[in-house]
């Protein structure tokens, strides 16, 4: 019996062990997504005879004789063709998505809800994970709520004093994402959503991974693997280029150590690539991997950075030349180090009235972008390498592939489709090199799709930091000294190791005026899964320590913690100093809203307190301890050391515009922002600007979508291009009409010349006839830079008997300059808060004593579900930046940064106990309270 899919019987029958998800995708239903492939995330939700199921754990043979509905058929099932299902319509109207990878599953699930189920979304959406939004927008979409507060109200980020008024379709308007309709209908094309007919002869690559933390690969016997039916080739270190590189991607490749080979004959962590098997099917490739015989010579391994720093410790990259690989001290496992002292901390401590000393620790966390790493490579008829990849940095991927494989840049074309989340994890080359190697050798298209387990065990994590902190304050509330000894664990490879260490020790310290600051920092190799770029790039770890310490200092001298911050934080014009005696040359106060952010949070917390009082909810009973806490953070709006963007824009014959930009869209909303910026410059609507992006053939170069650069760097290039185009259009019209350019005013679809409208389509035709191309380019080099601020506040209740934590109020204030799209920017902040709550309360990639990651599926690595995330209040400071495009600043990484210390400070305020290690899970809260003698000594509870 055939499987019916969206009303049509499938031609094919499933394989015996096939799950419904892959069967549906093979039948062309590419809206069915893989987030986990284990029944946890719900991205693959479909209906079987109207019942919602996770198709990744549904045996496909069980669907025989049944009717399956996917996102592609949802509207058709209930209404006319081309129409949207009401839930799709609501997700579109409320913008209930960012990257959109979870959206089809969300829609398919919510489409089955009755009113009762909508009343309890924490329960009924716990099988649908979203990593981007923080769920507020999803709740609004599922329930058809009105959405976020008045975008023009106070604290909205637009139309404040000194800020422009919002204009429909332009700056300050809640323009919907251009991809909205494609996202809610499952038609948005992510990396692997390429129709089969476009990939004739596609091969699949699977990786044999090291079972040893440190070993020399003595030999690999490929014979049995090559005999497996369907296996086409096996690649080992013998096939890999000698060129060392770093998986980390930066404008300057010299920012990271060259310590990695595509395939190496030394493996340095459990999970490292040993060999790649390419076959006609995933199953055959897997069988080939199992058939490989590898002889390893095990080497001594080291797992903690503290051990790795000891004399005589096993050396992870002892074979490398320090200068050639740019490793600070390979003989001591040190990738990079930093030693600085401003002023004299000994003097500072001598003048302190109170000194706080504590060792703070942050754990490994994983990005858990819903779309796993994946890439497809092929060689086209012209011999050009074509790579389609899930990347934040397609131009840098091209550069790295050229460097590793010795190719010319014009012989490599890299594109990213819509990217299903990044968070820094896709600022790496983790798949592209392998598929390129295989495609170049085999001249056939080759695909590699990582599993969720590979994401956890073999990609990258946030860098774990151990921060020994000593800080002093005078009795009158002045910070007198700040001393930090920082050890970061970069894992087996140094990708982003130096950058994360340096950046972490930057703005986190620079935000405070303190004459005496001392930092010793080491980024250290260990035989564990590599750490890499992660939202915040070192800041979230350091800010956890420093902002916790600020509260301790305030408590120590008996001062209100916000008041203490106010006394010590930088004010506009103050030098921002961290580890260098002079401020960064190109970092300026393009605007300053930190003081406003503090006030916004303080006032919101006090309103919240009042609400609880009014509602009679202030007393939660003797088991609950209630407290408040806050933390601040600063971030440079652009990464240092160069960040470049190039944009092109042109007028199309129909009178609309086409903007080509380099930066990638992975849910950050830059497509919308670019359309709005261009629309503002061209006095039109964002809907009239078609943005194409993340394709190395479209523009010259773009450093990429990291360091929150999508708006303030790439956006600036697009704005410049649009402004230039506006000038050219007006000049051309002036020439045609024999008038001054100043008499020509762009107005939507037309150009008004001396009061008479001329349709842009006519102008485009006139230009074409005259042989003039109405197009312009814009560039931006990422400097000078400004600073952006975030302040987060919490009210919490902690249960002294069980360790349970309830978030009573969550509020964040952000200084994002002029907010281009308030709804979208609020979404970035809500998503950052949710992701940070996960990293604060639950998430930890656990590595056991043998170096093996044990939390390798989502059931062992709990990311926040709907039930875990409170609705946060979000406010914007009223500022207008001098550097950013039309006054805007960056706001994508930074909302994450103040959340963990704010929560730890609230718990400290509630309980008196300082939790200095993350995550602050309930069991650890309870045990911490017990140690502090705060657990009630019921006679029933044994000692």
């Amino acid at each position, binding site marked *: 019996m055939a499987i019916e899919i969206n009303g049509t019987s499938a031609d094919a029958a499933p*394989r*015996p*062990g096939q*799950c419904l998800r*892959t069967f549906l995708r093979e039948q062309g239903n590419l809206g069915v997504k893989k987030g986990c*492939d*284990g*029944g946890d995330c*719900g991205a693959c939700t479909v209906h079987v005879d109207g*019942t*919602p*199921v*996770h198709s*990744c*754990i*549904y*045996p496909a*043979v069980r669907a025989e004789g049944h009717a399956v509905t996917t996102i592609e058929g949802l509207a058709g099932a209930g209404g006319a063709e081309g129409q949207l299902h009401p839930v799709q319509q609501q997700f579109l109207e409320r913008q209930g998505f960012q990257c959109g990878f979870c959206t089809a599953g969300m829609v398919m699930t919510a489409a089955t809800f*009755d009113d*009762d*189920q909508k009343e*309890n979304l924490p*329960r*009924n959406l*716990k*099988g*649908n994970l979203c990593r981007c939004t923080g769920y507020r927008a999803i709740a609004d979409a599922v329930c058809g709520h009105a959405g976020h507060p008045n975008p023009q109200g106070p604290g909205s980020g637009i139309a404040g004093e000194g800020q422009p008024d919002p204009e429909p379709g332009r700056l300050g308007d809640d323009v919907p994402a251009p991809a909205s309709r494609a996202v809610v209908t499952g038609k948005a094309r992510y990396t692997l959503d390429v129709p089969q007919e476009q990939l004739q002869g596609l091969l699949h690559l699977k990786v044999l991974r090291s079972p040893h933390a440190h070993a020399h690969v003595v030999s690999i016997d490929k014979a049995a693997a090559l005999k497996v039916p369907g296996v086409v080739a096996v690649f080992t270190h013998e096939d890999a280029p000698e060129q060392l590189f770093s998986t980390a991607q930066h404008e300057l490749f010299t920012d990271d150590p060259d310590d990695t080979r595509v395939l190496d004959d030394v493996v340095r962590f459990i999970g490292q690539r040993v060999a790649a098997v390419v076959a006609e*099917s995933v*199953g055959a490739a*897997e*069988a080939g991997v*199992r058939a490989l015989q590898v002889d390893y010579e095990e080497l001594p391994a080291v797992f903690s950075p503290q051990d790795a720093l000891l004399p005589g410790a096993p050396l992870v990259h002892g074979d490398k030349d320090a200068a050639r690989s740019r490793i600070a001290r390979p003989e001591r496992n040190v990738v990079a180090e930093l030693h600085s002292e401003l002023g004299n901390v000994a003097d500072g401590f001598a003048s302190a009235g109170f000194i706080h000393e504590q060792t703070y620790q942050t754990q490994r966390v994983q990005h858990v972008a819903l779309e796993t790493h994946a890439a497809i490579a092929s060689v086209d008829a012209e011999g050009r390498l074509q790579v389609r990849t899930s990347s934040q940095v397609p131009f840098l991927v091209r550069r790295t592939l050229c460097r590793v494989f010795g190719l010319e840049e014009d012989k490599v074309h890299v594109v990213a489709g819509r990217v299903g989340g990044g968070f820094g994890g896709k600022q790496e080359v983790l798949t592209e090199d392998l598929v390129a190697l295989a495609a170049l050798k085999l001249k056939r298209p080759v695909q590699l799709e990582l*599993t969720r387990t590979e994401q956890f065990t073999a990609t990258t994590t946030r860098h774990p930091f151990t921060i020994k902190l000593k800080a002093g304050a005078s009795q009158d509330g002045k910070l007198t000294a700040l001393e930090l000894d920082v050890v970061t664990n970069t894992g087996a490879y140094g990708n982003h190791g130096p950058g994360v260490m340096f950046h972490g020790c930057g703005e986190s310290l620079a935000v405070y005026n303190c004459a005496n600051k001392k930092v010793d920092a080491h980024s250290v190799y260990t035989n564990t899964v590599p750490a890499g770029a992660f939202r915040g790039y070192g800041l979230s770890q350091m800010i956890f320590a420093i902002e916790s310490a600020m509260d301790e200092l305030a408590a120590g001298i008996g001062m209100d913690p916000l008041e203490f911050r106010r006394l010590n934080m930088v004010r506009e014009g103050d030098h921002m100093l961290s580890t260098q005696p002079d401020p960064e040359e190109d970092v300026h106060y393009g605007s300053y809203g930190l003081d406003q952010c503090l006030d916004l949070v303080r006032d919101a917390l006090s309103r919240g307190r009042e609400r609880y009082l009014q509602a009679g*909810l202030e007393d939660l009973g003797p088991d609950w301890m209630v407290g408040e806490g806050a933390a601040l953070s600063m971030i440079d709006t652009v990464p240092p050391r160069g960040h470049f963007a190039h944009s092109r824009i042109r007028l199309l014959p129909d009178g609309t515009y086409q903007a080509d930009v380099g930066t990638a869209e992975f849910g950050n909303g830059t497509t919308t922002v670019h359309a709005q910026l261009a629309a503002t410059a061209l006095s039109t609507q964002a809907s009239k600007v078609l943005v194409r992006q993340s394709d190395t053939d479209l523009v010259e170069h773009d450093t990429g979508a990291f360091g929150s650069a999508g708006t303030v760097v790439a956006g600036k290039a697009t704005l410049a291009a649009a402004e230039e185009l506006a000038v050219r259009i007006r000049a051309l019209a002036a020439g045609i009409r024999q008038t001054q350019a100043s008499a020509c005013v762009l107005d939507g679809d037309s150009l008004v010349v001396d009061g008479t409208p001329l349709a842009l389509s006519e102008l485009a035709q006139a230009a074409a006839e005259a042989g003039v191309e109405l197009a312009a380019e814009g560039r931006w080099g990422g400097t000078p830079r400004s600073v952006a601020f975030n302040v987060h506040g919490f009210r919490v*209740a902690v249960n002294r*008997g*069980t*360790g349970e934590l*309830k*978030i009573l*109020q969550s*509020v964040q204030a952000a200084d994002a300059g002029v907010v281009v799209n308030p709804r979208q920017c609020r979404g970035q902040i809500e998503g950052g808060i949710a992701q940070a709550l996960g990293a604060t309360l639950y998430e930890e990639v*656990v590595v056991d004593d043998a170096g093996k990651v044990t939390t390798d599926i989502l059931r*062992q*690595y*709990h990311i*926040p*579900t709907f*039930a875990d995330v409170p*609705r946060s209040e979000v406010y914007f400071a009223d500022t207008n930046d001098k550097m950013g495009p039309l006054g805007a600043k960056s706001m994508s990484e930074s909302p994450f940064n103040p959340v963990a210390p704010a929560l730890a400070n609230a718990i400290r305020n509630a309980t008196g106990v300082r939790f200095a290690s993350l995550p602050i899970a309930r*069991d*650890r809260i*309870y*045990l911490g309270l*017990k140690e502090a003698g705060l657990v009630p000594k*019921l*006679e*029933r*509870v*044994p000692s």
Partner: protein
Amino acid sequence: MDMNTIEAVVRTTDPAEWRDGDAWLAGGTVLFSYGSYAFGPQPLKRLLDLGAAGWTPITVTGDGIELAATCTIAQLYSLPGQPEVSGRSWPALDLVRACCDSFVASFKVWNMSTVGGNLCTSLPAGPVISLCAGLHGVATILTPGGGSRTLPVADFITGDARNRLAPGELLRSVHLPASALSARVAFRRLSLSNLGRSGVLLIGRLDGGTSLVLTVTAATKRPVQLRFDALPDADQLTAALDEAIPADLYHDDIHGLPAWRRDMTYRLAEEIRAELATPQGTPGLAVSGDFWPPRTGGMPGSGPTTLSKGA
């Protein structure tokens, strides 16, 4: 995920057909989530599909309730509202929804996953284990020789992902006796996250209104049962827990540190004791965690009571 080593799906319920490399396929939600290596280093080759078994999911008689191994969690969840049980005075049915809601898996997974699957996966946090052990469930197991055997669910599970099934044996059903269903019960559960995987799950059952059976699950590697002829006092309860659960029996994984699980076991046990020592509906009782007391009306949307989140 695809189980690419599977060569055949065989529809059968006959243990005699089982051979090395086979796995029984009930809902598939565990097999397909862990993949071909769900049961060790040797890949699975065939799935013996129970999908066409045709076993009646739930059979209610005066003796109690028979749950087929293939009964889905969705079917189990709907049981308390069904006419077969509504006339009976089985207060312990309140445990059914509390246990189902203790699944970390969503209601969508419940449409496929089964009672038998959860028992045979034998994870410490398996909520069907808690339910069936707490209600003195007795498992019927079909053996390859054509026979069958029975044993209490509390004894069926022997450790983390370990049970008493021999190769080829097939769990057929679990019987929940009317005597247990008639008892007054109490339930407590804690998780490290809201609605997350159980770190501690305790069920108390007051048989005949006097004797207490306390079933500890999730906190321990396998179910632990304590029996008291009469309701113990707090000290007796503590002493009995000390006796019954050695330190290394507390489960140690990412879902809760053993020291927390241990203290929570004592805390929840005392809460259950206190609840069952007082008349039903006594106000002011300590109720830690979620899903208890059961909500009346049993709305499918019902869940935990939570404080309002911010404003």
